[in-house]
């Protein structure tokens, strides 16, 4: 988990694709609001693990894919994801030596920032979503982080 590997494109693309599918997988309405931002977590993981293999480009295009699939204003998720992935890349050396708990807390901060930028662009483009439950996704995402790193690092080491 300590490498700055330049070529890790295949697992990166695969995991992003799976995460994108999870983002649109139909769930019952009752638990839909609890769905974590899978793709965002995956992008954070790769930003921290191997920023040279794609990093910001991955973040930008993953964001664009989310924009298209969710049908919101083009560039919204791209902006939020790029900014937060840049922040994660910036902090990656520290993040790698953090304990899982502190990592999760940092990821929570990233996810909240991501959600806040979405919230802001939503408001600025004239269709605000003020539902409180949108702030649940960062909590769930942060709780899911240890599981995801375990899973992805296995994929990574193969």
């Amino acid at each position, binding site marked *: 988990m300590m490498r700055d590997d330049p070529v890790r494109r295949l697992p990166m693309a695969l995991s992003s694709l799976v995460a*994108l599918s999870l983002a649109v997988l*139909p769930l019952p309405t009752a638990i839909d*609001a609890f769905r974590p931002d899978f793709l965002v977590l995956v992008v954070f993981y790769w930003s921290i693990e191997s920023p040279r293999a794609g990093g910001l480009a991955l973040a*930008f295009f993953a964001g664009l894919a989310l924009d298209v699939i969710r*049908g919101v204003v*083009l*560039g919204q998720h791209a902006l939020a994801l790029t900014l937060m992935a*840049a922040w994660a890349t*910036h902090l990656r050396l520290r993040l790698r030596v953090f304990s899982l708990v502190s990592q999760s807390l940092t990821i929570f901060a990233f996810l909240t920032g991501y959600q806040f930028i979405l919230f802001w662009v939503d408001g600025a483009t004239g269709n605000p979503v003020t*539902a409180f439950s949108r702030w649940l996704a960062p909590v769930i995402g942060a709780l899911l982080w240890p599981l995801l790193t375990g899973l992805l690092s296995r994929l990574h080491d193969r």
Partner: protein
Amino acid sequence: MAAFRNADASGRTSGLLLRCVLYCLMALGLIITDKRYDHLGEMRRFLSVVAYPVQVAVASPFQGWDWFRESVSTRENLQADKEKLEAALRIANFKLQRYEALEAESQRLRGLRSNTAAVAAHFLIGDIMHLDLDAFRERVLVDKGARDGVFVGQAVLDSGGVFGQVARVEQLTSEVILISDPTHEIPVQVNRNGLRTIAVGTGDTHLLKLPYLSTSADVVAGDLLVTSGLGGGFPAGYPVGTVSAVKRDPAQSLADVDVRPAAALDRTREVMFVWLDGEPGDTVPVVAAAAPASTAATANHTPAASHPQAASHAQPAPPTPPAQHAKPQHQGSPP
């Protein structure tokens, strides 16, 4: 931002700040172009074709399961279904017997007032794709798009009543915004007394609100709301919902009215796209140019008006000829 410059401890992500700024400017540029100038239709359409395989891949297991369940259902089940459907068809036919006569009569009366209300002329059935677009917006993706002539703002119904309207059209799919979306409003009319108001979505698929009715408005629980056809987007007279509760607080000037939607917004799997009488663009001119057109309208209706009894029993041909059935096929999405 200064913090980013200190980041290059390893020297490996030098230019992180530069790249970040570059991508952010690109994203901001996209947001502004998309929002302000609406020039990105082509690009969005292209990207959506790229995203289509993902959407299909996610949706297909669910469609496969539906297909599997349908194909293994037993003979008894099919028999029971058939009997149920036949019973429903009998009832529907009973109701339909008077329909043509009533429609002709209503057309005639409207013609006398030189008021041409939009009537649904042509339907296209679409399947809802099993995808969650956004947890906080009530939208669904339907497998009919610009290729099938679907256009933005088109009314969408299901078997129970009004479902929503088309918000975005791609080549193969279209996004339908439900009447329960918090940003959606639909002009309605109380069927009992013709009271007009606007029904607003709440974000809950089982609840609409009528926020613009005063406490003295004549509306009671159980009232049926139908589309009023005002605004031109929806055909008139289709059920939107029933009033489920009316709360009147004497301290407030407006009543708090809850409406249960007539359409099965969270359960339906097939929806109908509706083309109104004539093209979407020319319903408005017809109303606006009512005075010059009224000679034609009355010429059409005078014979019927002079023999109202005969006309209502004679089952006259619908005043709108079948030519319009061909029309919608040529409609693309508006530019």
